[in-house]
């Protein structure tokens, strides 16, 4: 009898423990969201999206250039990272027996552990210094290096999920290996692959450090790949540490927009996914 009570008590304590840890994780998350929401949304106005920054001292202005800049740099980075990353993932998953593959795997693991500021300095040395100018292109390179290990790893793992008997079925039809990989294995994993890409893009979109050294930032609208370009994280950083109340207010608004942007991206991707699913039934 006593034993049963004791056992129930232990069960109960365990439940409490797991609940507490779950809450401990949720609390900071909610606090961040609440902070950014309250502070950011209240500082938000239409001007924020349509206007460029005003000179110091003047109140108002917006971050149109930084919003567009972030989208531009991130998309450029993704355009570099996705083809390379997915191809690498294919190599790792489909030709995993080779020596190169083992080295590559280790490199990718190391790469995902490199602090983003180091990647920023690297891109600075390799792109900015030789080209003698901060540029959106350098920023995109830095972000693509951040995206790469995530895309490679997720692609590899997703392709490895496809059981071998599917590959055998394709090969047994007398199809060359590359066609089996491309049109059967890869095609069947499109939705999963997209998820990996979005993960990588979301991660890169919020990075500040690598852009400080590369795209640097400016106060006007620019679409030139070879010029410095503003981005939301850098703009937020610059404004947040400034002494001006109005800029700090705008930094909150920027943080809010950045969060919403990343969230929308996720939702949009999910939307596309369900579309593909409906059509193809993935």
């Amino acid at each position: 009898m006593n034993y049963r009570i004791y056992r129930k008590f232990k069960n109960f304590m365990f439940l409490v423990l797991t609940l507490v840890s779950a809450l401990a994780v949720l609390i900071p998350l909610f606090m961040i969201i609440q902070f950014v929401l309250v502070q950011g949304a209240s500082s938000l106005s239409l001007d924020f999206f349509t206007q460029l920054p005003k000179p110091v001292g003047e109140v108002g202005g917006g971050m149109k250039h930084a919003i567009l800049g972030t989208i531009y740099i991130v998309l450029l980075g993704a355009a570099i990272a996705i083809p390379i990353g997915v191809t690498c993932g294919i190599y790792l998953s489909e030709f995993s027996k080779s020596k190169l593959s083992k080295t590559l795997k280790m490199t990718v693991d190391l790469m995902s552990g490199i602090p983003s500021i180091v990647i920023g300095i690297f891109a600075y040395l390799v792109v900015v210094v030789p080209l003698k100018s901060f540029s959106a292109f350098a920023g995109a390179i830095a972000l693509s290096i951040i995206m790469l290990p995530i895309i490679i790893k997720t692609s590899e793992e997703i392709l490895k999920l496809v059981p071998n008997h599917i590959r055998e079925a394709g090969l047994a039809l007398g199809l060359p290996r590359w066609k089996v990989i491309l049109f059967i294995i890869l095609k069947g994993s499109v939705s999963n692959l997209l998820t990996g890409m979005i993960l990588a893009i979301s991660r890169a979109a919020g990075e500040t450090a690598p852009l400080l050294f590369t795209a640097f930032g400016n106060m006007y609208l620019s679409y030139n790949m070879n010029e410095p370009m503003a981005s939301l994280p850098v703009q937020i950083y610059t404004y947040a540490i400034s002494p001006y109340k109005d800029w700090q207010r705008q930094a909150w608004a920027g943080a809010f927009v950045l969060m919403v942007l990343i969230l929308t991206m996720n939702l949009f991707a999910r939307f596309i996914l369900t579309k593909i699913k409906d059509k193809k039934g993935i």
Partner: protein
Amino acid sequence: MPNLNDAKVILEAKKLEAWFGDFHAVKGITVDYREKTINAIIGPSGCGKSTYLRCLNRIHEEIEGARTAGEVLLEGKNIYDKKVDVVDVRRRIGMVFQKPNPFPSMSILDNVVIGLRLQGISKRSTLLETAEVCLRKAALWDEVKDKLNSLGTSLSGGQQQRLCIARALAVNPPVLLMDEPTSALDPIATAKIEELMNEIKKEYTVIIVTHNMQQAARISDFTSFFVYGNMIEHGLSADIFTNPKEKQTEDYISGRFG
């Protein structure tokens, strides 16, 4: 009936061996298969029937650590020759696997025609026509004709197996390897697949693994009996099932061998 033993040899195994790492699964099989015949392979579970069959279209080597020795001659040419293109071999020797393996996230229709499509045939009417013919042959058409765009993997196990048969037929290989194609099917579908084999036998050569003695006796022209990676006996099915030479074969087909 013409003498089956006079028919032209299309496929020939010569001292064919297969390993999984150190495990010797197929131990020196020598046999020939005649054109336009059905050849059954029987034997206890785990004796290497699937492995042997998978050596005949060079799928065995896709498994890590697996290797083979010996020769397989397709119309006199060794398919294991270095100069031979393995893709070409597999195009001419089709296979239906023991476990149904339809392509995931592909519709029923796509599953059937993917082989043709990836060979460059894109005319929709041709593909649809082929799909219908092959699905009919595989006794699946009536069940799927209204849902050709649903997922292949949404079908039942037995339906998936028939889908895989249709898929293999679509690329039209002169030799077809079938690994227990009817083990998951009900008697009606089984009868239809057997009918199909009798039908395609007019043009093709079929090698089929089966655990069903009646089926082997019913449909096959030749039968091989395997035990532990060895071929104990091979001959006309009529002889094997009525008058086996080996005691082991006799015990097995009469159910005294386990």
